[in-house]
């Protein structure tokens, strides 16, 4: 089975502030990490490979530094990494990102199974996977808790819904997004990190893709545009209280009583 796991490098910290005076975004550190949700996707891919054979590629789109998450995935056990990186991809929204990823997938050939994490911690949209499935014209199932088995050209999976779990059969090729905590991701192997002589990372730029029209990528290829960014509004009616614990507790009770909560 040819398996592809799509992953993303995200900021190591969620902390970004806006300088009130200048309106400039300030990010504390340049630290990055693998999107935590992707660890479950990689693990699910590796488990399937162990059971049914084949290989697991990992793909990411981002600046050249994003190669780090591909290396981490290879240390976990993936066979090779694919890095989609080009200045023309910058500023891509969900639609342009999914399109770019699908171009990368088409370039690499036919995969039987594409696995994504449920969402990322920086965008939190959970949309890129299903959009990619639509562009690839294959079916998808989101929020997969477990791939139970493979039967011929079909997978049997458990899908998490709000108040039920559905056992579904889906034909390959298909795309799934893996629910958080669906499994226990293995740690990157130090042995693998030390002994692998060469980690295979394939780098793809715009000119390597089937569609080389710059209008379909990055900001230009994005239907949505960010008009402005601004700090969140502050409540004006707020009341602040300080003092010793006794005074604060008394005031606290007064408010709860006033508002008829006790």
């Amino acid at each position, binding site marked *: 089975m040819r398996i592809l796991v799509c992953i993303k490098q995200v900021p190591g910290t*969620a*902390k*970004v*502030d*806006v300088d009130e005076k200048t*309106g*400039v*975004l300030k*990010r504390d550190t*340049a630290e990055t990490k693998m999107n935590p949700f992707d660890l479950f996707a990689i693990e699910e891919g590796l488990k399937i490979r162990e059971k049914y054979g084949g290989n697991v590629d990992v793909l990411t789109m981002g600046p*050249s530094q994003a190669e780090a998450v591909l290396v981490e995935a290879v240390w976990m056990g993936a066979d090779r990494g694919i890095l989609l990186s080009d*200045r023309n991809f*910058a500023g891509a929204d*969900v*639609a342009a990102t999914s399109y770019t990823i699908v171009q990368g997938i088409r370039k690499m050939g036919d995969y039987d199974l594409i696995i994504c994490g449920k969402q990322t*911690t920086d965008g*939190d*949209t959970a*949309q890129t996977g*299903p*959009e990619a*499935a*639509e562009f690839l014209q294959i*079916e*998808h199932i*989101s*929020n997969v808790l477990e791939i139970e088995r493979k039967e011929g050209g079909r997978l*049997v999976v458990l899908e998490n819904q*709000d*108040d*039920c*779990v*559905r*056992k*579904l059969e*889906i*034909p390959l090729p298909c795309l799934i997004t893996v629910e*958080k905590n669906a499994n226990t991701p293995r740690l990157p192997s130090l042995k693998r990190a030390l002994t692998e002589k060469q980690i295979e990372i394939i780098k793809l730029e715009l000119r390597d893709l089937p569609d080389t029209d710059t209008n379909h990528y990055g*900001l*230009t290829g994005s*239907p*949505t*545009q*960010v*008009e402005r*960014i601004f*700090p*969140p509004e502050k409540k004006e009616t*707020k*009341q*602040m*209280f*300080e003092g010793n*614990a*006794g005074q604060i*507790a008394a005031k*606290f*009770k007064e*408010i709860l009583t006033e508002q008829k*909560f006790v």
Partner: protein
Amino acid sequence: MGRLEIHQELVTREIAEKMCEICPFHAISYDGNVLEVDAGCKMCRLCVKKGIPGVITWEETAEKEIDKSSWKGIAVFAEQEEGVIHPVAYELLGKAKELAAVVSQPVYAVVIGNAMEKAVKELMHYGADATYYYESENLEEFSPVPYTDVLEDFLEEVRPAVIMFGATIKGRSLAPRAAARFRTGLTADCTALLMKENSDLVQIRPAFGGNIMAQIVTPNVRPQCCTVRYKVFPKALRHSKPCGKFILRKIQDERIRTGIRLLRKTKKPGQIDISEAEVIVAAGRGIHDKKGMNLAEDLAEILHAQMACTRPLVEAGRFDARRQIGLSGRTVKPKLIITLGISGAVQFAAGMKGADCIIAVNKDRNAAIFDVAHYGFVGDLYEIVPELISLLGGGGK
């Protein structure tokens, strides 16, 4: 639309360093000769606005214009499970009425399901000008491709300027497929929506994974798509009589094609659902031990509150993930929420700022939580909460 143009002739080492520094995404680099913007660029354009003038400029490129007047109305996808309409649909309808009033356009509701005409008729009390009901036995269970096929039919016939989805598990699976099919934009988890006179939808959501809000538009493509979480907007008013037209669409079974087959469906027992709670006590990283957990639980018991928490406490294994508030957890809109030891990251705040009354306890007077709270108490929760519990007549335990 446009692109960034770098004017290398103006670049000196000193200027380059300043430009590199100004980029919050570390996407500008300088190798001693050439100043470059790499693929990490988010096109926030701060380098243009706040950088050294003229070094990086924004060059507008010509746009193909679309005929916006041929796309009219605000549509709401009202999702169902076993014939019951998800309550987020009533909230979306309320917002849709508001938006539609700005441009004097109609509101549509669209339901996909089977044998649920009664529920659809009930939905018609909430103000849509027309309610479309697509019915087939094969549409009873949600499946992304058939549902997208049906929506495609609806969107092509009605041509609404906007379609809104609930940011539910199904909505987050369906909306991106539908948006991709129309090659249009989709903005997830909007926390505020406004309408421009030219029918451009202004979509506001927390972005860049930080304390920032982004205002997003889809200026050259229709329909505009967005998702909104449950409990973000107030529910529409119920009219005593059903409103608008009822349009039944029977779908031929051969038109519904999917390779996905449902083998079994298991109801989840004893659901924890904090999104329906009226009173919530939420715990954050300031609660770092068993003692703190007990204090929060005792307070919750006295107030008949549900317990909730921030992401770090789920990650630390102290709480079930279903009790997490925030962008990667649940959105809540209780009458009262008391936050204990929560600093108030924007992802958390986005999930609870619709609460009628927010009371925050935190040691740090500068914590962001105090920006969203109605009442802020600066102090140690380990001292304040026991005092409060005894004042409220608890603490016997």
